[in-house]
């Protein structure tokens, strides 16, 4: 017996989507399962059985050498023995023969392969060699490969109904796509989602992602009419830059879809070798956090939060603002929800007079008709219905949260049904928190059946609403073009051409900064006290002396900095003293000279940094600078090159921005100038691959009318 029924095509779907290369992964007309065995409760058998019993609308062929049939379906020895065309292969053979199977798939003209088998990159060098051979075969024959080492692929589209996985059950149809690098997590998520009544459009475990990666999957799901939200569980970033670019295409513009992601296990590659501030601050998760934010990816910390936010977005309208009305039958949870809402950035608006009048008419005198509305513990469905309807009708309200605690007279199911009825006509999002477990269970079930997001805790509802606000803000915020800056590239090329690997001297670093238009102080490298005095006379007093030596990174530790030298005599004395003391403390250091430059007027110390991130490439950092930078870690990151809007957001994102804006009556700093410096630093690291890291620490942020100044800069270079 051969199971045959070709999937119907969706006449309304765009032909572009129908022709997408990954259609053969998600909507194959026929599937060969290669390496099936007749033993139930084994992966090879269960996958074939799942496809056969999930309602798959296409044709499925078991490839089982030596077997006449599997589950009463005629079996083939090789995929090449099948007379008809085959769209997809699901390979379940042991790792050592997957290569042969895949080769035959190529010869057969199969366009997609899901390699379930483990024993590749994840087991070490030998496995990596095996995996590379699979990649070569896919490239030769144009096969889109999911895996290896994965759970498989599920498509709940009723026109396809494919469960090419060894998950225990086919999930319900839904609007959420779930992509995961971890196969084991997938099975847990499927079980969790089933309990919560959450369905999926597509479910993909992509394992070692040797072929198809999350980037191609983003593109497919962006165009998938069945998908509204994309959820991602990611352990390893291989092409961070590509991921970000793909995410930006998905999360903005026409047909924008949110991406919510858990990113775990990011190793601080390279951070151990980095000795700059930027290096030590950038080596960990904050870069990923900031970069995801700038790509519109909502990064969450747990599976719970992932689905809390996804169901709100997927099944409720997008709110037009952050104003939340709360309706509760218990004061305490109402206050807790209010606190949580404010903490995550939602606002609790006052109701207008009309709403207040409606609430007064519908509720007892003891009720609180202000936000949060307390309908009082004995409230039944009628009171809840009137209150929720009134707040949803208020033009000052963008969304509502309904809180219920089960009291003896609370008609939980009726209240749930009432909310469901309101939801049918509401144009604003509604979320519920029926607090408890056993007593509220049937009410929660009614809500979930109507796709009304339910949260055990009102705080979770607020967090989900805040995530939806982030999605809204991301779509609305401007992203500019990368400008062609007026920079002196030739000077930088000239300096780098004569520089060795390692740290560049301060005088040359300052020259590079100047060439890229950053405000650098006048400076001169002097080898005699007379030269230093002449420079100071020219620049004007007071001046600073700083030792320059390729062997000295931390100048203060060897008394290599002298500040506030107000006269020629002071300069002369300091020059001789510094040269002598540094020579004594570090006799092995070769002193190139002492740098003379004017004292920079006081201002806030900020840090501008740049670093080549192993995942994301050139990145820019901004934050509170000076000696406390690593203590407070008040920094943020962006991808280089930066546009001016992104640079402005970076400055806004750090707490120190409040200081720069003139907190407590202080003069406002030159914030626009700082943004310009960030754009220029981003351009610099993007233009020159040899620059591994740079720190401008501090940049002295002066008052708006006086501008900023680079006080210190360090640049670390790669070898030629």
């Amino acid at each position, binding site marked *: 017996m051969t199971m045959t029924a070709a999937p119907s095509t969706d006449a309304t779907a765009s032909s572009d989507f129908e022709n997408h290369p990954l259609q053969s992964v998600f909507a194959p007309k026929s599937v060969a399962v290669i390496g099936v*065995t007749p033993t139930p409760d084994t992966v090879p058998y269960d996958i074939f059985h799942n496809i056969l019993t999930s309602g798959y609308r296409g044709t499925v062929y078991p490839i089982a050498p030596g077997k006449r049939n599997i589950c009463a379906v005629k079996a083939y020895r090789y995929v090449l023995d099948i007379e008809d065309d085959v769209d997809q292969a699901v390979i379940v*053979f042991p790792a050592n023969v997957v290569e042969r*199977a895949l080769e035959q798939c190529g010869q057969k003209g199969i366009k997609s392969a899901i390699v379930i088998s483990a024993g590749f990159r994840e087991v070490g060098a030998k496995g990596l060699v095996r995996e590379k051979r699979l990649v070569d075969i896919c490239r030769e024959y144009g096969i889109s490969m999911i895996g290896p080492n994965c759970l498989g692929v599920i498509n709940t589209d009723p026109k396809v109904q494919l469960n090419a996985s060894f998950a225990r059950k086919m999930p319900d149809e839904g609007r959420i796509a779930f992509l995961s690098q971890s196969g084991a997590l997938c099975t847990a998520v499927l079980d969790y989602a089933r309990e919560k009544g959450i369905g999926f459009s597509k479910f993909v475990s992509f394992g070692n992602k040797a072929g198809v990666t999350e980037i191609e999957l983003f593109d497919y799901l962006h165009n998938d009419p069945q998908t509204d939200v994309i959820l991602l569980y990611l352990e390893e970033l291989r092409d961070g830059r590509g991921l970000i670019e793909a995410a930006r295409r998905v999360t903005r513009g026409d047909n924008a879809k949110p991406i919510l992601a858990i990113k775990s296990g990011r190793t601080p590659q390279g951070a151990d070798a980095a000795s700059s501030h930027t290096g030590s601050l950038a080596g960990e998760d904050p870069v990923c956090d900031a970069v995801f934010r700038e790509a519109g990816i909502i990064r969450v910390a747990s599976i719970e939060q992932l689905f809390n936010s996804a169901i709100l977005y997927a099944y409720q309208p997008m709110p037009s603002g952050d104003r939340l009305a709360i309706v509760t039958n218990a004061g305490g949870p109402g206050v807790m929800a209010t606190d949580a809402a404010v903490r995550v950035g939602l606002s609790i608006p006052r109701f207008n007079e009309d709403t207040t009048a409606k609430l007064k008419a519908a509720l007892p005198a003891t009720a609180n008709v202000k936000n949060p509305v307390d309908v009082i513990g004995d409230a039944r469905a009628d009171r809840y219905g009137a209150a929720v309807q009134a707040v949803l009708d208020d033009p000052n309200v963008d969304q509502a949260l309904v809180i219920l605690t089960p009291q003896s007279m609370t008609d939980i199911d009726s209240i749930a049904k009432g909310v469901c009825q309101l939801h049918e006509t509401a144009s604003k999002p509604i979320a519920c928190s029926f607090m408890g477990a056993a007593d509220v269970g049937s009410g929660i079930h009614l809500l979930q059946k109507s796709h009304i997001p339910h949260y055990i805790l009102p705080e979770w509802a607020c967090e989900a609403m805040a995530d939806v606000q982030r999605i809204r803000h991301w779509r609305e915020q401007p992203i500019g073009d990368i400008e062609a800056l007026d920079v002196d590239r030739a000077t930088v090329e000239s300096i780098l051409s004569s520089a060795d690997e390692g740290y560049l001297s301060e005088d040359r670093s300052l020259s590079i900064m100047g060439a890229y238009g950053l405000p650098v102080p006048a400076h001169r490298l002097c080898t005699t006290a007379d030269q230093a005095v002449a420079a100071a006379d020219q620049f004007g007093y007071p001046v600073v002396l700083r030792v320059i030596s390729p062997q000295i990174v931390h100048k203060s530790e060897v008394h290599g900095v002298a500040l506030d030298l107000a006269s020629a005599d002071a300069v002369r004395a300091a020059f001789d003293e510094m040269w002598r003391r540094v020579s004594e403390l570090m006799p092995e250091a070769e002193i190139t000279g002492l740098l003379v430059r004017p004292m920079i007027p006081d201002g806030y110390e900020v840090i501008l940094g740049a670093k080549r991130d192993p995942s994301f490439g050139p990145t820019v950092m901004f934050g509170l600078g000076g000696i406390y930078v690593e203590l407070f870690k008040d920094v943020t990151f962006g991808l280089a090159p930066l546009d001016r809007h992104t640079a402005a957001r970076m400055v806004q994102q750090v707490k120190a921005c409040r200081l720069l804006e003139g907190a407590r009556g202080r003069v406002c700093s030159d914030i626009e100038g700082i943004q310009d410096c960030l754009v220029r630093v981003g351009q610099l690291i993007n233009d020159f691959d040899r620059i591994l890291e740079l720190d401008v620490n501090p940049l002295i942020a002066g008052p708006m009318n006086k501008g900023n100044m680079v006080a210190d800069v360090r640049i670390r270079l790669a070898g030629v």
Partner: protein
Amino acid sequence: MDKAEVEQRVKKVVCQVLNVSDDMITPESHFVFDLGAESTQSVELVAAFEGEFKIEMDDEAALAVDTVGAAVDFIAGYVK
């Protein structure tokens, strides 16, 4: 015992353990890819060869043998 006899008896064991017909088997036949051996059957094959030839093989090395021809050579090394 000459190699031809070893080959004939190896084929007989393979047919019995994997439940495949004699005409499916060539020296190049891969136990898994061509003959559909499941992981537990690999262990059964080793045990059956030891019984057939009254030998005791190194388990790890025996399980690494993946084709019929290689099995013949491997067992021939024990029975010569």
